[in-house]
């Protein structure tokens, strides 16, 4: 029995290591080499549209509501200490440091990541990737690379939009509805938020998460078993693996950036 368990563990570990190796090779093949801007740029624009612009709506709506909820919850606690003047920094710091990058990454994994996995898995299943290879066009460069860069560019931008909208949402609830002084909402925020420490660290987090989510999504699609069941499993795995990895890395990054 124990040897069975050990064998199971060993096999899983080997599979994971092999999968990680394959994903590394995929990314290496896609990104290393001389880029061709003449052909690459239009493809990048197309993917920025598919990955970035189409994710904008869900990001704006979620950002607005999360900012509003933060303000509402924060206010009820802060008002007990007579410290509702600190509502601004509470909303802004929560969003900039944590919620902005993390929630954006989770939504992004669900919205764009799963779609990417399904798209690439389906291209594989219908032999479009093979066909491209036989036409002497490298699918890693033609399909994977533009999607990777579009994702890495889009996610920090989406996180910035999320943060801005969230802070406005907090203003909407805190100032316009609950009656916190508008001047102090902004001024305490300005006194407590630092461009480098908070805003830019959030952006760095977001870039790291972007690489994680997009890499997982592309690899799961590229490595999917080319059947309908295989693709559906790969899509689920993308969302689950990407979300958990993002949360894990969030802890590490938070400890490195703000823990010391």
């Amino acid at each position: 029995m124990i040897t069975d368990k050990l064998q199971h563990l060993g096999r899983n570990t080997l599979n994971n290591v092999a999968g990680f190796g394959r994903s590394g090779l995929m990314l290496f093949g896609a990104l290393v080499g001389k880029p061709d801007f003449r052909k690459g740029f239009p493809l990048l624009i197309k993917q920025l549209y598919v990955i970035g612009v189409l994710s904008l709506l869900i990001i704006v709506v979620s950002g607005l509501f999360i900012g509003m909820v933060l303000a509402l919850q924060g206010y009820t606690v802060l008002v007990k200490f007579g410290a509702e003047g600190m509502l601004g920094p509470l909303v802004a710091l929560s969003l900039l440091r944590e919620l902005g990058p993390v929630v954006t990454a989770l939504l992004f994994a669900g919205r764009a990541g799963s779609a990417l996995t399904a798209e690439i898995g389906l291209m594989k299943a219908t032999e479009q990737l093979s066909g491209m290879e036989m036409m002497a066009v490298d699918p890693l460069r033609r399909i994977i690379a533009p999607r990777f860069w579009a994702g890495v560019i889009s996610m920090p931008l989406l996180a910035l939009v999320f943060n801005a909208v969230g802070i406005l949402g907090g203003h909407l609830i805190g100032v316009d509805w609950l009656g916190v002084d508008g001047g102090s909402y902004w001024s305490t925020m300005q006194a407590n938020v630092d461009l480098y420490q908070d805003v830019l660290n959030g952006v760095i987090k977001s870039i790291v998460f972007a690489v994680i989510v997009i890499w997982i999504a592309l690899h799961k699609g590229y490595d999917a078993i080319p059947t309908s069941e295989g693709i559906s499993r790969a899509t689920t795995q993308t969302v689950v693996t990407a979300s958990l990895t993002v949360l894990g890395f969030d802890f590490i990054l938070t400890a490195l950036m703000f823990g010391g």
Partner: protein
Amino acid sequence: MSDIMVDIQRLSFSRGENLIYDGMSMQVRRGKVTAIMGPSGIGKTTLLKLIGGQLKPDSGHILFDGQDIPALSRAELYQARKKMSMLFQSGALFTEMSVFDNVAFPIREHTRLPESIIRLIVLMKLESVGLRGARDLMPAELSGGMARRAALARAIALDPELIMYDEPFAGQDPISMGVIVRLIKELNNALGLTSIVVSHDVTEVMSIADYVYVVAEKKVIGHGTPEQLRQDKSELVQQFLQGEADGAVPFHYRANAYEDELMESAR
């Protein structure tokens, strides 16, 4: 320039623990239609992927125009692939582009021709498969036969020297089957290219092939012109050509003795 376009020498290939080819050899002559026939599941598509360099054999050589495909570097392989082309069973059209853009795709990727010339080439290629009027349709709007013809137009877009057809007749109605048979023959003669047709549709293949290889049980079991093959003494070849259910290729997948397994549950 040698007369032989593709020369496969003592090719062995296995997938996992399954040995698929065991020391197989065959030659494809320039300018001819060579057919590879055999029962399903013997890895005919695999053979085309081996020639295209998408898979690497365990041992043996695959010479394409004098170059050993498995030994080529990545860049050399991509150069060699520009001279070959493959028609996939599913067509493998890019679903997010129109028929026109699909056919234009290889031209745009590999040349820097102006758009006006690309348009001319694409229209000529589409005309030759009879789909000039369907150029603005999306692949999802095409029937199976039309999709395969569109894919054929794309496959010949860059005037390859070798074109490989993977099961071109599978799942086609008699009319589109006839259309594709005619197209393969005409393209081969008109463009002077070399064709490899992989199929198990005996009648269609026998009608267009100049030379036929019958592959089964990991190796070539018979080869020759269609006439020679009809005279072949081999039981296996005759079973395949006549389409008999049981014979030298057994009806049953290899298994333990039937009685033993039935008795096992009774015990």
